[in-house]
């Protein structure tokens, strides 16, 4: 069955999903801005694979509401852009419309549910790296674990099943999971550990040569587990232990260029998802009475860069 899909924010991940779904025969519209939007409108959305660029034409514009009604709305914007995107996409919410999160952090599904409703909101846990190579063209796609999809209770049957099937048929890995909420938190724990990489402004594969840095990264993982436990989230100590095992592996020079997306944003002078990642751990720690001093300190040293570089010169 062909779905009408609106991808709000056709960046690297949103654009890749839009391309895949459109190529699989779904009726896809995307929102984007600036040169990226102009290129998509002019030449279609491009996906570079194996050295050649495939293009597909689809509806593209700035306002998601213009593309309704939709069966599925995929939010591809950054976590700090989600509230603005939700306000624009609110007219798309309806009894027959599902909304899928793809954001880093753990708060996006609830924020989307506030507009689209608990029953029609899906959690998407994205473990894919991709880039906008140039305006209109996505590439460097590595489907690490793909996109794990479930409903707000973490279940993959019921509301999530149709979207999972559509993604799989479009060539997107959409793995099975017992509890997708646990997958979301597991990624959050990993990302809190990776904020040590952002603070040091180094790939983890370089920074991990320092034992103190490794200890910080492990501590950040444990702090995220601790706030998750206090918040009643389905976290386990195994999530932090997985991070620690990765830190114990020797640095891999071949992976020295792999950087967390928040570090990529920092180096590009873009706003950071700070308040939805390590800043969220710091905030939840304060709210729940859990000591998270490492998360607080990392948040503080990144605070001047939250909205881009602090000041010219």
């Amino acid at each position, binding site marked *: 069955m062909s779905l009408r899909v609106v991808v709000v924010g056709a960046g690297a991940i949103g654009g890749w999903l839009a391309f895949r779904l459109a190529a699989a025969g779904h009726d896809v519209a995307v929102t984007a801005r600036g040169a990226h939007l102009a290129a998509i409108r002019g030449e279609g959305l491009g996906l570079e694979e194996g050295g050649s660029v495939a293009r597909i034409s689809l509806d593209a514009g700035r306002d998601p509401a213009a593309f309704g009604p939709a069966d599925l709305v995929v939010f591809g914007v950054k976590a700090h852009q989600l509230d603005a995107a939700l306000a624009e996409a609110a007219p798309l919410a309806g009894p027959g419309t599902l909304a899928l999160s793809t954001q880093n952090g753990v708060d996006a599904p609830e924020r989307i549910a506030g507009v689209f409703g608990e029953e029609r909101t899906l959690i998407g846990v994205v473990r894919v790296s991709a880039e906008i190579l140039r305006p209109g063209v996505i590439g460097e796609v590595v489907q690490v674990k793909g996109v794990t999809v479930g409903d707000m209770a973490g279940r993959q049957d019921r509301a999530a099943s149709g979207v999972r099937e559509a993604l799989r048929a479009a060539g997107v890995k959409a793995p099975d999971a017992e509890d997708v909420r646990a997958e979301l938190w597991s990624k959050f724990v990993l990302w809190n550990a990776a904020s*040590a990489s952002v*603070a*040091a402004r*180094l*790939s983890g594969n*370089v*920074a991990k*040569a*320092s*034992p*103190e*840095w490794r*200890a*910080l990264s492990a501590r950040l993982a444990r702090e995220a587990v601790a706030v998750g436990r206090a918040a009643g989230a389905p976290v386990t100590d195994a999530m932090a232990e997985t991070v620690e095992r990765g830190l114990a592996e020797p640095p891999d020079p071949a992976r*020295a260029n792999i950087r967390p997306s928040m570090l990529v944003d920092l180096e590009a002078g873009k706003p950071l998802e700070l308040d939805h990642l390590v800043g969220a751990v710091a905030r939840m720690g304060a709210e729940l009475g859990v000591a998270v*001093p*490492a998360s*607080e*300190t*990392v*948040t*503080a*040293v*990144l*605070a*001047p*860069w939250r909205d881009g570089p*602090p000041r010219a010169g």
Partner: protein
Amino acid sequence: MRFATVATGAVNGYLAARLAAAGQEVACLARGAHLEAIRETGLRLVTGDGETVARPAAASDDPAALGPVDVVLFAVKAQDLETVAPLCAPLMGPETVVIPFLNGVEASARLEAMLGAGRVLEGLCQISVFVREPGVIRQTGDFARFRFAERGGARSDRALAIAEAMAVEGVDAGVPEDVTRELWLKFMFLSTFAGITAAARCDAAEIRARPELSALLADCVGEVGRLARAEGADVSEADEAKALDFVRALPDAMRASQANDLEAGRPLEVDWLSGAVARLSATHGLAAPAHRTLHAVLSPFRDGRRG
């Protein structure tokens, strides 16, 4: 009184120039182009008031050529102490005293472990200087304060005699009532300001403008205050409040030299600043998570640029 400067970087270059200009006998340990410049034209000191050129009595890269002296003024980057300290041996006679002017609170103990009990005073300096080019020392502030006394704080005759000899034009030298307290007060500010401005790549204005950084500032100062008291220093919570006020009053663009060193890819003193707060706190069973985190964030750069 005969002085030697080990080594003759910015701080000791300033002292050597001032002492030599006042007629004191100074032997400079230096090397490379800096040594050549000192030998050929002397040390040129550029301050807000103008320039002076002074010729030290001797300059060499071989301490044995400089012979024994009465006082070794010891100023290097904290991480270089163990490498440079053995160069003091040829300069030391039976009565020679070594005064460290290093960042951190461990220099005198580290030097004493290498040079022998009773040979090392406790010292600190407050001065803003850099080596502008070989042979040229530039002072950027208008203060040049040097304080020292016996380790443990005693105001000995030998410390007082050295202070009297060093009290020349442009040098505020003295033996304070409580050198341990002064050392910790400087460390409270320096470890905190260096850790934050380097890790956050920011200046004093950003610390004031960001609530998270203001809170971190207070946490860091509190950690050093607790450690100072555990180490027996007379440092109170009122001193912590003064340290916070001091940072709040700094010029907007001010940042610590550690932030400049990080940006320039030079080695960092972080193991002897935030790292020392974390390490020494642990020996007292104190948690110092803020400084520990700053240390961890900067630790990949301890030996200079990476990646």
